[in-house]
C-alpha cells in the first residue's frame, strides 16, 4: 500500500481546496484493495465552505459529527452510492461507536479484526453484509484542536503501516481543514473589511467627489498652521500652486490679514472645545497680496486631534453684489434727498408702514420712529384731512394707481406742499401693498405763487403806468370839450350882455356847450367801460373795436408827440377769445413803444400804422408799425425780457408783460425790422368759435365806440 499511498499523499499536498483534499483522501484510500468505506466527519463547530453542504444547516447542532467526505465500494448493496453524504450516517452522534469514541477520546482506534456482532458495531447487519472486518479511525487534530474524525472500514485486516498512513492523512486533512477555516476566517474578515471599506469608500468616494468637483474650496491644516492639503478650488482662491503647498512655504497665518487674526483665534478655540468651528466670513491674502472674501467652516478629523479640514467659499461675487446694492441704496437715498422725494410702502392688511429716510425728513419725524396712520395724520394740514381720509379709504378698497396733492402743517406752523403718486402691488404672499413716492413740492409751489404774484404785481404796475399815460390822455381828451364849454359859456355871457343882446349867438354857444358836455361824458363812459371789467374776463371780442378804443383814448397823447396814427382795420375781422382789458393793455403798450421809438425822429414823418387782419391758422393778427429808430439784432432777443429798456425813464416791463398776456391767449408776440426805417410789433391770437349770437353782441358794442379814426 505504500506506493500508491505515497503518490496519493503527494497528490493531496498539491491540492489546495479543502473539499478536494478531503475527497481525494477518501477516494484515494477507498481505492486501496480491500477498503470498503472511508469517511471523514467534522465537529459541528468546524465550518468549511463546501459545495456539498448547501442543504444542511448545522449551526445549532453540537452533539453530532457531520459527514463531509465519503467514498466506498459496496459489494453487496447495489445502487447505493457510498459517496452520498446525506444518507443515514450523515450525522454521527459523538458518543456512539468507535467513530464517536475516537472523537470523544481524541485518540485513534485500530481494530484489526472484528466480528459484526461486537457490541460497538453500530450496524452489524451492514458490517456482515459487506463483510467488514477491520476499522481504523483517527482524530483530525490541528494545534490541539479536534476538528473531526476519519474512519476507514476494510474487508481485510489492516496492518500497522496502513494505520500510520491513515494518521498521516488525518493530519493532512486536519491541516487542510484548519487552513480552509483560517482562509475562511480571513476571507470573512476580509469580506467584512471589504464591506466596511466598501461602505467607507462609498462615502469617501462621495466626499472625494465633492472635494474634486471644486465647487467649494477644501483645505486641510494642522492647528499649528501647516497646510497639509487642499483641492484645486482652494488653491485657485488663494492663487497658490500645489508646489507652494508641498514645500510647506505657505502657513495658515500667512493667508490671513492681521485684522482677521483675532477672529481666527476664536475659531481655533471653538474648534478645540467643540470639534468644529461654525461658518464665518473673513478674508484671505492671495499670493499676489490681493484679498478675497470667503466663508469658512470646518471640523477636526479626530476629537482631540490636531488636524482640521475646512471648506472655504469665495464670496467675491456676493460682496460685489452687496457693494452694488449698497451703492444703489446710497444713490437712491441721495436721489431722494436731492429730489426731495421720499418713498413708502404700506401693507394694507397688516397696517405695516415702511418709510424711506427722506420721507421721515419731509414729515420732520425722527428717523425710525414707529409709524402709524394716526401719527401721520398729526402732520396733515387740517384743511386737507378729509382729502387724506378719502385717500386712505381709496387705498383700502384696493384702488389701482392714484396721485394726490395735499399739505402738511409742521410744528412751526409752516406749510409744506406734497405731491404723492401711489401704485398698488401684491407682495409675495399676494397681499395688497402700496408703493408710493411723495415729493415735497413746496419750493416749486412757493416760487410759482411768487411768480404769479410778481406777474400780477407787474401787470398792475404796468397798468398803473399805462394808467398814468392813459390818465394823461384822458385828461387831455376831456379837457378839449371842457375848454369848449368854458369858451362858449364866456361867449354866451358876452353875447347876452351886449346891447342889444345877441340871443341867436347865445343860443348857438349854449348848444355847443351841451354838445361838448356830452362829449366829455362819453369819454367818461368809455373809460368806465374800459376799466369796469373784472380781472380775467375772457369773452369773444372784436379786436378792431378794442383797437379803436385804445387809439381814441391815446390819440391826443400820440398827437402831442407829433405821431400820425393810421389805422387799417380789416373788415369782417373774426372775433377772438380773450380778456378785453388785457388785450387793450397790449395794444396800448405797442402804441406807446412805437411813439417812443419815434420820439427822436426829425427827418421824416412820425408815422404809426395799426393794422388788423386775418392770419393763417385761424388767427387774427394786429401789427403796429413805426418809422422810428428800430432795434439792433443784438437787442432783438432782449426786448421782450423783463426790465430791458433803452428808455431812460422806462421800466422795461411793458413788452415782457405784453408777451405774457398774448401767450396766455395762446398767441404770439414778435417784432420785425421794417424794410425801411423802424420796426413792426405784431401779435396773433386764435379766433373764437363764432356763433350767430355774437354778431348781435358786436352790434350793441359799436354804440360806445367813437367811430373810426
Amino acid at each position, binding site marked *: 500500500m505504500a506506493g500508491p499511498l505515497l503518490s496519493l499523499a503527494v497528490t493531496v499536498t498539491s491540492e489546495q481546496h479543502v473539499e478536494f483534499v478531503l475527497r481525494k483522501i477518501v477516494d484515494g484510500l477507498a481505492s486501496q484493495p480491500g477498503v470498503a468505506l472511508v469517511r471523514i466527519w467534522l465537529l459541528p463547530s468546524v465550518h468549511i465552505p463546501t459545495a456539498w453542504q448547501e442543504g444542511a444547516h448545522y449551526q445549532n447542532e453540537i452533539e453530532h459529527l457531520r459527514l463531509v467526505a465519503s467514498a466506498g465500494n459496496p459489494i453487496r448493496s447495489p445502487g447505493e452510492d457510498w459517496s452520498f453524504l446525506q444518507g443515514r450516517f450523515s450525522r454521527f452522534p459523538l458518543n456512539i461507536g468507535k467513530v464517536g469514541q475516537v472523537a470523544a477520546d481524541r485518540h485513534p482506534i485500530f481494530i484489526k479484526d472484528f466480528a459484526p456482532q461486537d457490541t460497538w458495531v453500530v450496524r452489524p447487519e451492514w458490517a456482515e453484509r459487506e463483510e467488514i472486518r477491520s476499522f481504523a479511525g483517527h482524530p483530525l487534530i490541528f494545534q490541539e484542536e479536534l476538528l473531526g474524525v476519519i474512519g476507514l472500514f476494510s474487508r481485510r485486516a489492516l496492518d500497522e503501516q496502513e494505520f500510520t498512513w491513515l494518521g498521516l492523512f488525518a493530519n493532512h486533512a486536519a491541516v487542510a481543514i484548519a487552513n480552509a477555516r483560517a482562509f475562511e476566517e480571513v476571507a470573512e474578515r476580509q469580506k467584512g473589511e471589504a464591506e466596511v471599506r466598501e461602505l467607507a469608500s462609498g462615502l469617501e468616494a462621495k466626499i472625494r467627489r465633492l472635494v474634486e468637483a471644486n465647487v467649494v474650496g477644501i483645505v486641510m491644516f494642522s492647528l499649528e498652521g501647516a497646510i497639509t492639503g487642499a483641492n484645486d478650488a482652494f488653491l485657485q482662491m488663494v492663487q497658490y500652486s500645489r508646489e507652494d503647498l508641498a514645500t510647506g512655504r505657505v502657513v495658515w497665518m500667512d493667508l490671513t490679514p492681521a485684522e482677521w487674526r483675532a477672529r481666527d483665534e476664536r475659531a481655533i478655540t471653538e474648534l478645540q472645545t467643540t470639534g468644529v468651528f461654525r461658518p464665518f466670513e473673513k478674508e484671505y491674502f492671495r499670493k499676489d497680496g490681493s484679498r478675497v472674501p470667503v466663508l469658512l467652516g470646518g471640523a477636526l478629523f479626530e476629537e482631540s486631534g490636531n488636524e482640521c479640514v475646512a471648506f472655504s467659499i469665495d464670496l467675491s461675487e456676493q460682496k460685489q453684489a452687496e457693494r452694488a446694492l449698497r451703492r444703489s441704496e446710497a444713490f437712491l437715498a441721495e436721489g431722494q434727498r436731492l429730489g426731495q422725494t421720499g418713498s413708502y410702502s404700506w401693507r394694507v392688511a397688516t397696517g405695516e408702514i415702511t418709510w424711506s429716510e427722506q420721507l421721515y425728513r419731509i414729515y420732520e419725524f425722527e428717523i425710525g420712529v414707529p409709524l402709524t396712520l394716526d401719527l401721520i395724520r398729526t402732520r396733515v394740514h387740517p384743511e386737507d384731512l378729509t382729502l387724506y381720509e378719502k385717500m386712505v379709504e381709496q387705498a383700502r378698497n384696493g384702488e389701482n394707481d392714484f396721485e394726490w396733492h395735499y399739505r402738511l402743517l409742521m410744528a412751526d406752523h409752516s406749510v409744506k406742499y406734497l405731491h404723492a403718486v401711489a401704485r398698488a402691488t401684491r407682495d409675495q404672499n399676494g397681499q395688497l401693498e402700496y408703493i408710493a413716492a411723495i415729493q415735497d413740492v413746496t419750493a416749486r409751489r412757493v416760487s410759482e405763487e411768487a411768480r404769479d404774484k410778481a406777474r400780477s404785481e407787474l401787470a398792475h404796475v404796468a397798468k398803473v403806468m399805462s394808467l398814468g399815460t392813459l390818465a394823461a390822455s384822458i*385828461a387831455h381828451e376831456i379837457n378839449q370839450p371842457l*375848454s*369848449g*364849454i368854458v*369858451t362858449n359859456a*364866456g361867449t354866451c355871457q358876452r353875447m347876452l350882455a351886449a346891447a342889444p343882446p345877441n340871443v341867436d349867438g347865445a343860443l348857438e354857444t349854449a348848444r355847443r356847450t351841451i354838445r361838448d358836455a356830452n362829449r366829455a361824458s362819453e369819454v367818461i363812459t368809455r373809460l368806465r367801460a374800459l376799466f369796469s371789467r373784472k380781472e380775467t374776463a375772457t369773452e369773444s371780442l372784436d379786436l378792431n373795436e378794442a383797437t379803436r378804443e385804445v387809439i381814441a383814448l391815446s390819440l*391826443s397823447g400820440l398827437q402831442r408827440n407829433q405821431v400820425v396814427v393810421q389805422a387799417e382795420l380789416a373788415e369782417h375781422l373774426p372775433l377772438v377769445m380773450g380778456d378785453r382789458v388785457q388785450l387793450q393793455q397790449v395794444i396800448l403798450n405797442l402804441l406807446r413803444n412805437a411813439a417812443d421809438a419815434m420820439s427822436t425822429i426829425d427827418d421824416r414823418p412820425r408815422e404809426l400804422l395799426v393794422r388788423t387782419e386775418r392770419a393763417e391758422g385761424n388767427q387774427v393778427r394786429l401789427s403796429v408799425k413805426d418809422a422810428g429808430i428800430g432795434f439792433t439784432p443784438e437787442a432783438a432777443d432782449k426786448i421782450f425780457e423783463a426790465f430791458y429798456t433803452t428808455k431812460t425813464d422806462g421800466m422795461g416791463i411793458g413788452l415782457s408783460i405784453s408777451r405774457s398776456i398774448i401767450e396766455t391767449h395762446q398767441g404770439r408776440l414778435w417784432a420785425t425790422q421794417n424794410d425801411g426805417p423802424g420796426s413792426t410789433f405784431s401779435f396773433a391770437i386764435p379766433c373764437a368759435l363764432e356763433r350767430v349770437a355774437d354778431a348781435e353782441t358786436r352790434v350793441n358794442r359799436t354804440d360806445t365806440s367813437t367811430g373810426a379814426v
Partner: protein
Amino acid sequence: MPHSFVMGCPKSGSRNRGPLLSVVDDDQSVRESLPDLIRELGFAARVFSSAEDFLSSGSIDETSCLILDIAMPGMSGPELQQELKSRGQKIPIIFITGQKDEAIRALMHKQGAAGLLFKPFSDADLLTAIKTALRPLEVPPG
C-alpha cells in the same frame, strides 16, 4: 367895453372890426367856440385846422395875432413859429395847450411867444393875453 381899448401897430382887419386874430387848432370844439368869443371881444377872427392850412391861406399878412395850438399832427405850433420866423414874419403868437405844465410857459417865453394859455381858459384871460400880444413890441425879435 369891447370897443374901448387902444391898439398899437394896427393892421386893417376885415369888416371894420378890430385886428385879425387867426386861430390854428386841430381841435374842432376850439375852432367852433373861440372865433365867436374873439368876435365878442371885438376882434376879427379866422380859423384854420392846421399850420399848413394857415401857411397856404394867404392870411399871414393880414394876421395881427396868432392863437396857436402847441400839439398838432403834422406841423406843430412851435414849428409854425419857426417857419414864420424864417419867413421874416413877426406875428405875435399866443400859444394854447391842454397840457398843464408850467415848464412850457418858460420855454415858450424863451422862444418868443407873446403868451400862453392853458385850456380851459376864461374869456378874461384870453382878452388879457390878446391885449398883451397886440401891445407894441417889447420883445426883441428873435
